[in-house]
C-alpha cells in the first residue's frame, strides 16, 4: 500500500509532538505543503484554501512523537489527494478522467524546491517559438501585445501559439 493510499484511510494514526510545539512543527511542514501546492495551482487564494484543507484533513490524524519525515510524508500524501480533488472538481471531471494529467500536476514525492528549475526543464524541451512565447508570458510577465511585438507577430497568432505551447508543455514529463 502506498503512502497516498494510506492517507485516504480514516483509521491510520501518525504521531506528532505535543502542545503548541506541535503546531509550530505542523506549520513549518505546512509551509512546504503550501509551496508545493502553490507551484501547481499558481495563485495564492487557491493555494491557501487547499493548504488549509490539507491541515484540516491530516492534522487531526497525527499524534505525538512521530518523526518529522513521517509527518511530512503524510501531509504530502494528503496534499496530493486534495490537489486531485481540486482539479477534478474545478474541471467537472472524475479523478479517473483526470488521471492522465496527475503525473504532471502531482509528482510522486514532495519536491517543494522545484520552482523555476522545473519550468526551465519543461521549456527546454519545447520548440523555439513555443519556449519563447511561454518565457515571455510567464517568466517575464509580458502581455500578449508585448509578446506579439517582440516576436514580430500578431496578437491572434500569439494567442494560438500560447495554447499550442501549453498543450505541448503539458506533454513534457520531468523526472521527479
Amino acid at each position: 500500500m502506498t503512502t497516498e493510499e494510506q492517507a485516504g484511510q480514516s483509521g491510520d494514526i501518525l504521531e506528532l509532538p505535543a502542545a503548541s510545539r506541535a503546531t509550530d512543527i505542523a506549520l513549518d511542514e505546512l509551509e512546504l505543503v503550501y509551496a508545493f501546492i502553490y507551484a501547481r495551482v499558481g495563485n495564492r487564494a487557491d493555494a491557501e484554501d487547499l493548504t488549509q484543507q490539507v491541515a484540516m484533513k491530516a492534522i487531526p490524524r497525527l499524534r505525538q512523537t512521530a518523526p518529522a519525515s513521517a509527518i511530512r510524508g503524510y501531509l504530502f500524501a494528503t496534499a496530493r489527494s486534495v490537489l486531485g480533488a481540486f482539479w477534478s472538481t474545478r474541471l467537472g471531471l472524475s479523478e479517473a478522467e483526470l488521471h492522465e494529467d496527475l503525473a504532471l500536476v502531482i509528482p510522486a514525492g514532495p519536491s517543494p524546491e522545484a520552482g523555476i528549475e522545473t519550468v526551465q526543464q519543461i521549456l527546454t524541451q519545447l520548440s523555439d517559438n513555443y519556449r519563447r512565447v511561454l518565457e515571455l508570458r510567464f517568466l517575464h510577465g509580458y502581455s500578449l501585445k508585448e509578446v506579439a511585438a517582440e516576436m514580430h507577430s500578431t496578437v491572434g497568432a500569439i494567442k494560438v501559439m500560447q495554447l499550442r505551447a501549453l498543450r505541448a508543455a503539458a506533454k513534457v514529463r520531468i523526472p521527479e
Partner: protein
Amino acid sequence: MSRKPEDRLDKIVSDLLRGRRLKLRGGDAEEKAAITAAARLAGARQAPQRMHPAFRNRLAGALEQTRSGGWMTRRGALVAGLGLAAGAAGGAFLSREMETQPRRAGGEPIDPANGRWVDVAALTDLPEGQGHQVVAGSIGAFLFRRGDSVSAVSSICSHLPCELWWSHRDGHLACPCHPAAFTPDGRPTNAYALPALNTVRVRVTAAGRVEVLGTE
C-alpha cells in the same frame, strides 16, 4: 463565453498572471492539460512561495483549536473568521440557537458571522416539494416544504459561482453555467465528484413564518 479555445485559455492565463483564482467551467475540461500546465508555469514564476503571515496566523489558530478538541471544518473556520474573536463568540451563540431546529441536508450548513434570522415567507406560501428561491441579506437559498417542515440549501452552485434555478420539470436545481444539477437536499445528481450544496439554516415560527439565517 469565448468560443475559441485560445481566447478562453488566454483568459485563464491572464487571471493567473494577475494572481487571481482559477475560475474554471465545465467546458474547460477539453483543455485540462494546457490549463494545468499554465497553472504550474504561473506557480513557478518566482522562488518557492511562503505563506502570507496573516494566513499562517489563521492556520495556527485553527490548528490550536483542532488540537484542543474542537474539530473545525474548513468552511466553518472560514465563516468564523479563523481568529476573529467576535466571529467565534457569535458562532457559539448561533450553535446554541440552532440546536432546537436544525434542518440539515447534503453539505455543510452556512453559519454567517453576525448572522440573523430573516423572515422570508409564510409557510403556506411555499408549494409542497417545489423549490422556492429566497434571499436573506447576503445569503441566497432555495426552500423546500414537506408538510410542516422546511429545508433549505444554498442557491449557489458548489462548483462554479453561478445562481442555480429550480427545474419544475426535472425536480432538481440546475446550474446555468455547466451541466450540473442537485437534488432538493443538495446532493449532486450526476456522476461528477461535485461537493453537495451548502445547507442554509431555516426555521418555522409558531406564527407560521419561515425564517432563514442570513445577514443584515
